[in-house]
């Protein structure tokens, strides 16, 4: 048995027949889904993480690079909102991953991601607020 298999927390779990304790607790009993669906679920999770990181990067950028454009409170407020959203997205991504994995195992319909309409609305509001602030500052 290759001893490096379990060393990194980010490498895959054992691919033998016995599921790991975390999986037994995390997933309801059911059938193993098609491995392609498990991989697709993982890729979707990674896409959401990258989206979360983009919000975090946006929060940092607003805070660090708009010193002269906005008053302090606006700048900090925007940065906090973006960073909070990034945090929520990262957590939501993991929750979504578990729910989808369970749905696949128990042959149920996949859960609708609640985050999509929320992000759309928040992004539209943020863009509108930004436009307003810039228009008022001119």
């Amino acid at each position: 048995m290759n001893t490096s298999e379990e060393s990194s927390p980010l490498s895959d779990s054992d691919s033998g027949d016995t599921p790991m304790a975390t999986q037994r607790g995390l997933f309801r009993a059911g059938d193993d889904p098609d491995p392609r669906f498990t991989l697709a679920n993982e890729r979707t999770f990674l896409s959401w993480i990258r989206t979360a990181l983009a919000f975090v990067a946006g929060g940092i950028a607003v805070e660090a690079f708009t010193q002269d454009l906005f008053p302090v409170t606006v700048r900090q407020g925007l940065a906090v909102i973006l960073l909070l959203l990034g945090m929520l997205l990262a957590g939501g991504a993991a929750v979504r991953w578990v729910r989808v994995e369970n749905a696949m195992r128990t042959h149920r319909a996949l859960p609708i991601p609640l985050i999509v309409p929320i992000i759309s609305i928040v992004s539209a509001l943020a863009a509108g607020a930004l436009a307003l602030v810039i228009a008022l500052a001119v």
Partner: protein
Amino acid sequence: MSHPPEGASHQDPGLQPERTTLAWIRTMLALLVTSSLFLRWADVHGLIAVTPFLVCLLVSLLIHLSQRTRHQRASRGIRDERINANPRAVGTLALASITISALGLLVVLIG
């Protein structure tokens, strides 16, 4: 690219193992970009910004080190038609992302 690992070739025409590996690489890149922004933040907020920068780097390194194993597992999973899901990787990455944004919030609020 180097030769594929022995015994891990698969028949999936959808190239799922490759696409999943690429997805991890893109995530690692996103982490590196975010880390460099934190470093730029150090100009404004000082050394406290170095902590999230280091966390980003550490997670990127962990992802990089586990890439080969991950690809081998995915290939074997396709070939054997079953694969274990990977809650440890998912949990670690989600927790790391949450920590990074929390550190960022901390810097904004007290900086």
